[in-house]
C-alpha cells in the first residue's frame, strides 16, 4: 500500500523507464517474471552452496578462497547448510511454482486481466526480495544475531506469502472469465488455488510462531522453553547447540513447506501429462479431490509436527498416522497420471520428459517416505543421510523437475521463443541420471551409518564403503551441477536467439493463455473479454478439426451450447482412446 503514485503510471507504456517498467510495476506478468528471475538467481546460488558443502565433506582441509576469509568453524558449515536450505525452499521451491508461474499464468488461464489486488502483489514481491536479502545476510553475521535475523526474514516471507495467498484465492474466486465454472478450471489453477488456501492457513501459524520466537529472543519472554534452556547453559555447550538449533528450526519450517511446494507441482505435471499425451486427464474430478486431500492432510501433518517438535511427546503417533494417510491422495494422483499415459501417443519433448521425470522421482522418493512415515521404522532408519536423500529426491529435485517442465512448456508464451529441444533433452538425461546417482546412495549411507552401531560389524570395511560412496556422491554432484550449465546456456541463448514461435498455440494446448500471441501483448485478450465454453482438457475429441478443442472455442450452435457441451463430455468418457 502507499504505492498509489507508482501504480497510477501505466506500467507497460514503452516510453517509461526501467524502474517503472520492472521495479515499480504492479502488472502481474512483470511480477511473475520477477519471481522467476529471483528463483533462477537463488537456485544457482543454492547449487553453488551444495557444491561447497560436498567439497568440504570430502576434503575437509581444502581452503576455499571465499570461505577461509570468514573463518572455518563448524558454525560456518551449519550456516552454509541453513542458507542452502532456506534459499532453495523459500525462494525457489515455494516462490517459483506458486508466485512465479502462478502470478503470470493464473490470470491468463482464468481470463482475468490482472490479479485481484495488484498493489498487494507488488508489496508481496518486494517483501520476498527483502527476506532474500535478510536470509543471505545471516551468513555474514555472528550466529546469535544471525538466528534472529533469519527468523525475522522468515516472518517477512510469511507475511509476503499471506498476501500472495490472499491475492490468489480472491482472484480465483471472483475474477474468472464468463463461463469458466469451477469444473472447467485447468488443474494448474486448481492447484494454485488449493495451495493458496493451504498457505493462508499455515503461514498464519508460522507467523504466530515467528512472533513468539522473536519475542523470546528479543524481549526475553518464555514461549519456547528450549531456547531458555540453551541460554542458561555454559558457553561451550551453546557453541555446540547452535548448529543443532539451526537445523531444528529448518526442519520445523520445512515440514509445512513440503506440501506448499509440491501442490502447484502436482497441478503443473498433471497439465503437462494431459497436454502431451493428447488425452483428457484421467478422472479429473477425483484428481481435484486428491489435490484437496493433499492440502487438508498436509495442513494436519504440519500442525501435528509443530507440537511433536517442541511440545507434546504423544503426538508422533498421530503424526505418523496422518503422514501415512497422505499416501492416499498421492496414490490417486499417480494413478491418474498413469491412467492418462495409458495407451496414449505421448509427445516426448523436453517438457514432457521433465514431467515424467517428476513422476519417477516422486514414486521413488515416496517409497523411501513409507519408511519415514512409520514412526518405529523412522526411528531405526532415520539418520541424517537417509532423510537428506529422501527429502531431496521427493521435494527438492522432483519439484525442480516440475518447474523445469513448466518452464520448457511456457517459455514460448513468456518470451515468444522456444528453448532448444536437443540441448534440453541432453540436459534432462544428464540431470535425471545425476540426481539418482546423488540421492540414492545417500539412502544407503543412512542405512550404513545405522549398521555401524550394530555389534559384530567389521567397522573398517563399513567406513571404507561409506567414504567411497561419499566420494561417488560428490563426483555425481559436480557433474550434475555442471550439467545445469547446459540449461543456463540453453536459457540465455534461446532468450535472444531461440526459434521464434510463429504459431499462437505451439503445443496445441486448450487453455486460455494460448488464445493470443506470444509474448502476451499489453492487453492480453485484446478488446474482447474471453468467454469459456468447455472444460480444460478436451483432447482427442472426435469430429473436431484437430485433436483438441480450446476452451474459448464456441460450440457450433450457440443456443444449444449447454447441451452439446455435455454431449462432448459424455463422448470423451465413452471413447476408449
Amino acid at each position: 500500500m502507499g504505492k498509489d503514485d507508482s501504480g497510477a503510471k501505466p506500467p507497460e507504456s514503452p516510453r517509461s523507464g526501467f524502474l517503472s517498467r520492472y521495479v515499480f510495476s504492479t502488472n502481474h506478468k512483470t511480477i511473475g517474471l520477477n519471481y522467476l528471475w529471483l528463483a533462477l538467481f537463488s537456485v544457482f546460488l543454492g547449487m553453488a552452496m551444495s557444491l561447497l558443502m560436498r567439497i568440504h565433506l570430502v576434503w575437509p582441509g581444502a581452503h576455499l578462497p571465499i570461505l577461509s576469509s570468514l573463518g572455518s568453524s563448524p558454525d560456518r558449515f551449519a550456516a552454509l547448510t541453513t542458507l542452502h536450505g532456506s534459499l532453495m525452499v523459500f525462494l525457489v521451491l515455494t516462490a517459483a511454482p506458486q508466485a512465479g508461474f502462478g502470478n503470470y499464468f493464473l490470470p491468463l488461464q482464468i481470463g482475468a486481466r490482472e490479479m485481484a489486488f495488484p498493489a498487494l502483489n507488488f508489496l508481496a514481491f518486494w517483501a520476498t526480495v527483502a527476506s532474500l536479502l535478510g536470509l543471505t545476510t545471516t551468513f555474514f553475521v555472528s550466529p546469535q544475531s544471525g538466528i534472529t535475523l533469519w527468523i525475522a526474514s522468515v516472518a517477512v516471507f510469511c507475511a509476503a506469502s499471506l498476501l500472495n495467498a490472499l491475492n490468489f484465492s480472491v482472484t480465483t474466486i471472483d475474477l474468472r472469465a464468463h463461463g469458466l465454472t469451477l469444473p472447467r478450471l485447468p488443474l494448474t489453477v486448481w492447484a494454485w488455488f488449493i495451495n493458496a488456501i493451504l498457505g493462508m492457513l499455515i503461514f498464519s501459524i508460522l507467523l504466530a510462531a515467528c512472533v513468539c520466537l522473536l519475542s523470546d529472543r528479543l524481549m526475553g519472554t518464555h514461549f519456547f522453553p528450549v531456547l531458555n534452556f540453551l541460554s542458561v547453559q555454559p558457553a561451550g555447550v551453546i557453541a555446540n547447540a547452535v548448529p543443532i538449533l539451526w537445523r531444528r528450526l529448518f526442519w520445523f519450517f520445512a515440514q509445512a513447506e513440503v506440501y506448499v511446494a509440491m501442490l502447484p507441482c502436482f497441478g503443473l505435471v498433471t497439465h503437462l501429462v494431459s497436454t502431451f499425451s493428447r488425452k483428457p486427464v484421467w478422472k479429473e474430478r477425483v484428481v481435484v479431490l486428491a489435490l484437496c486431500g493433499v492440502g487438508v492432510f498436509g495442513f494436519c501433518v504440519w500442525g501435528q509436527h509443530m507440537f511433536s517438535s517442541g511440545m507434546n511427546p504423544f503426538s508422533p503417533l498421530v503424526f505418523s498416522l496422518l503422514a501415512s494417510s497422505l499416501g492416499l491422495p498421492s496414490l490417486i494422483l499417480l494413478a491418474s497420471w498413469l491412467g492418462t499415459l495409458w495407451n496414449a501417443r505421448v509427445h516426448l519433448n523436453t517438457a514432457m520428459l521433465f514431467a515424467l521425470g517428476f513422476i519417477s522421482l516422486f514414486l521413488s522418493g515416496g517409497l523411501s517416505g513409507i519408511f519415514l512415515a512409520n514412526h518405529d521404522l523412522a526411528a531405526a532408519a532415520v539418520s541424517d543421510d537417509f532423510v537428506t536423500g529422501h527429502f531431496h529426491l521427493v521435494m527438492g529435485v522432483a519439484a525442480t523437475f516440475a518447474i523445469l517442465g513448466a518452464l520448457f512448456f511456457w517459455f514460448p508464451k513468456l518470451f515468444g521463443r522456444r528453448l532448444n529441444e536437443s540441448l534440453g533433452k541432453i540436459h534432462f538425461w544428464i540431470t535425471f541420471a545425476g540426481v539418482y546417482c546423488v540421492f540414492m546412495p545417500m539412502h544407503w549411507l543412512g542405512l550404513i551409518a545405522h549398521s555401524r552401531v550394530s555389534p559384530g560389524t567389521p567397522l573398517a570395511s563399513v567406513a571404507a564403503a561409506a567414504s567411497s560412496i561419499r566420494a561417488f556422491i560428490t563426483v555425481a554432484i559436480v557433474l550434475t551441477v555442471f550439467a545445469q550449465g547446459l540449461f543456463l546456456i540453453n536459457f540465455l541463448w534461446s532468450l535472444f536467439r531461440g526459434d521464434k514461435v510463429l504459431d499462437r498455440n505451439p503445443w496445441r494446448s486448450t487453455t486460455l493463455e494460448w488464445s493470443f500471441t506470444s509474448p502476451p501483448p499489453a492487453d492480453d485478450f485484446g478488446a474482447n473479454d474471453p468467454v469459456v465454453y468447455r472444460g480444460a482438457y478436451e483432447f482427442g475429441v472426435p469430429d473436431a478439426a484437430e485433436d483438441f478443442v480450446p476452451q474459448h472455442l464456441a460450440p457450433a450452435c450457440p443456443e444449444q451450447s449447454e447441451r452439446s457441451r455435455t454431449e462432448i463430455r459424455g463422448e470423451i468418457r465413452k471413447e476408449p482412446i
Partner: protein
Amino acid sequence: MPGTTAVPDIELIVEDIGGGGGGPTPPAGGGDDGDGGGDDRNRHGKWSPSPKRYSTAIAIGIVSILIFFMALASAFIVLRRSSELWVTVRLPPVLWANTCVLLASSFTLESARRRLSLADSSGFRKLWLTTTVLGFLFVAGQLIAWRQLVAQGVYIASNQASSFFYIFTGAHAVHLLGGVGALLFISFRKFEKTKISLPTAAEITSYYWHFMDGLWIFLLALLYLGK
C-alpha cells in the same frame, strides 16, 4: 468443488465505477496480514474486476487472522496446562471499560451504516467519526492497562502469563489499528474517483470491525478464564 456441476457462471459485467484515475487504497487494511489494498487502474477501459473481490478478500483475511490468533491461543492453552509454575496476571479493571467502549463502537458503526442506507450523509459522518474516536479510545485504554501492569511490576518477560497478556493485547491492538485506519480512510476519502463505492467500503470495514470486536471478547475470555 468437483462434485458440483451446476456452479453458476461468474458475471463479470459490472458497471464502471472507477473513472480510471489513481488507485485508491481500499479500507480495512488489517495489520500484518494486510487484507486491504489494491489499486486497479482501469487501464483496459472495458474490463474491471468484480467488486465482490473486496468482500471475498475480507472474509479470507478474517479467517487468516483468526488462524493467527488461534495458533497463539492454542500455545496459551498448551503451556497453561503443562506449566506447574503458572503465575496469574491480575487483569487491570480498565479492560472492562475498554470492552464496553469497543462494543459501543460496533453499535455506532451499525447505526452509521443505517444512516448511510437512509441517505443521511451528515448523520452517517457524525456516527462514523464517533466510531473512529471510540476506536482510538479503546487503543488508549489498552495502553493505560499496560501502564498499570508495568506500575505493578508485571513486564512482558516476567512470566509466561504476562508474556501472553502483552502479546495478545499487542497483536490485537495492531490489527485493530488497521481497522481504525480503514475508518479514517472512509471518513476523509472522497469517493468520486475510487474504484470502491462508499457503501461497499463501509460494509467490509464493518465486517472487519465486528470481527475485531468479537476477537477481543474471545481473547478477554481466554485471559480471564485462563488465570
